């Protein structure tokens, strides 16, 4: 059964130095508050997994939490670069960052295989690209039934999967709706999981297209209203597009970034 914990305790119990951690949410429902708590608790040497690193991993990488990144598209959507990610890869600041680049299709299927607890997934992908040459997690496989050549990617089973959802009930059952991304797959692929939620309700009302994760499939739930800002929670908030644009000059400069993080993230823990 999922425990209802406060966010600080949930991160302290679930996320350890050296863990493989996936904080997911495809543009929608990105668990920023959980990332900020990981930053405040100064976790180090994490392997971060995420389709779109987005601002959430730009912040974690810039604050020195990560030693490796598994990802498929690392930009600020509609705006430009993730400057902290680039600085880490290009100049080892604040620490060297090993990367394993996939495509969305490939990394998505690594989560799918992880959730299904099978060792790899099969798809039509990567053939002829440089990615299959540089990545140790892309391989060719022959279909045992047709002889066709396909691509295999290994399952990914994070130590911790973290997502944000709209609602949980008091027993820890979770519901999310709108763009549902890979959130179900990440929770089911991970050894431990945390869901931060906008609201705790007495009883969940099922939504069209909604995903329900039963309490027994989740390790912990933390109530964090607004915990996905500047991303958004359909039915609760709008994406703060202005923040994504404003992040560009903040993230471009190391000092401006450090000062912003100190003021807006670290200060909240003091």
């Amino acid at each position, binding site marked *: 059964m999922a425990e209802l914990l406060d966010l600080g305790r949930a991160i302290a119990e679930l996320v350890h130095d050296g863990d493989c951690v996936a904080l997911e949410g495809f543009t929608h429902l990105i668990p920023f508050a959980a990332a900020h708590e990981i930053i405040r608790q100064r976790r180090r040497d994490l392997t971060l997994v995420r389709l779109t690193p987005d601002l959430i991993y730009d912040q974690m990488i810039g604050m020195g939490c990560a030693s490796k990144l598994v990802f498929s598209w690392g930009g600020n959507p509609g705006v430009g670069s993730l400057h902290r990610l680039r600085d880490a890869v290009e100049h080892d600041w604040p620490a060297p960052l090993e990367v394993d680049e996939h495509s969305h299709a490939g990394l*998505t299927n690594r989560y799918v295989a992880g959730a299904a607890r099978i060792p790899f997934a099969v798809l039509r992908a990567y053939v*002829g*690209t440089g990615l299959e040459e540089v990545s140790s997690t892309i391989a060719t496989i022959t279909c045992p039934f047709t002889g066709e050549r396909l691509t295999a990617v290994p399952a990914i089973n994070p130590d911790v999967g973290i997502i944000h959802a709209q609602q949980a009930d008091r027993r820890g059952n979770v519901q999310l709706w709108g763009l549902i991304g890979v959130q179900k797959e990440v929770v089911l692929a991970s050894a431990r999981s945390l869901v931060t939620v906008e609201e705790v309700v007495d009883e969940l009302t099922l939504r069209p297209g909604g995903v329900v994760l039963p309490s027994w499939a989740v390790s912990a739930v933390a109530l964090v209203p607004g915990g996905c800002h500047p991303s958004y929670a359909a039915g609760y908030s709008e994406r703060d597009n202005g923040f994504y644009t404003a992040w560009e000059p903040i993230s471009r400069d190391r000092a401006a970034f450090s000062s912003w993080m100190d003021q807006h993230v670290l200060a909240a823990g003091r």
Partner: protein
Amino acid sequence: MSDTAPFSTDEMMTVAAARELTDGKVCFVGIGLPSTAANLARRLHAPDLVLIYESGAIGAKPRTLPLSIGDGELADTADSVVSVPEIFNYWLQGGRIDLGMLGAAQVDRHANLNTTVIGPYEQPKVRLPGAGGAPEIAGSCGEVIIVLRQSTRTFVDRLDFVTTVGFGDGPGHRERLGLRGRGPSLVVTDLGLLRPDPVTCELTLTEVHPGVGVDEVVQRTGWPLAVSPQLRTTAPPTHEELAWLRRLEAERGTRA
């Protein structure tokens, strides 16, 4: 009286891309110019263009341009909202998408794309955003339109990294790799339009935009550029195209 007004090179690119999106096609839309072009086409000649965003929105009909591929406006106006595994496995890999639009940092003469690194992979000079949906969009969509600004930095003799296969080494390569889509059909730049030669698969200049000289296009290409003997000039954006485009741009990222 001519039906033209002053326009920017970016506006010409967007309009030229939009004109290629014929009504009723199912289109995989990336953010930025492709999304702008697709939504412009919906306002003009292609009201029944089906827009699929990789965030899971199928048949999105945004009233304003989204800033990201996951803006709420896309889900709220979609025919169906599905998970990311479903988008890539059932809809894209399943061969249900007619056309994809891609940008890139570099393109070569066979329309292969780099969005990974400038410089060596392990020690890049510039770390680019990465593959995203591109390799499989280019592999599985019926056809692909590529949009990028043209210079010797972007149109290169040799890619720093092959993120996405267009025609690989040339004729027959896609078939040998087992790629199911037909590959790139058009490259739209700020200078003109390039299309793969039906025999050599090499990108060939087929249209120049108004006011652009062939010499300039050749100079801004990092390989000896083939020019079509039937070279034409792109029709300039009409008043209607520009009016819709500017309205869409002005309202980008807002909610109707």
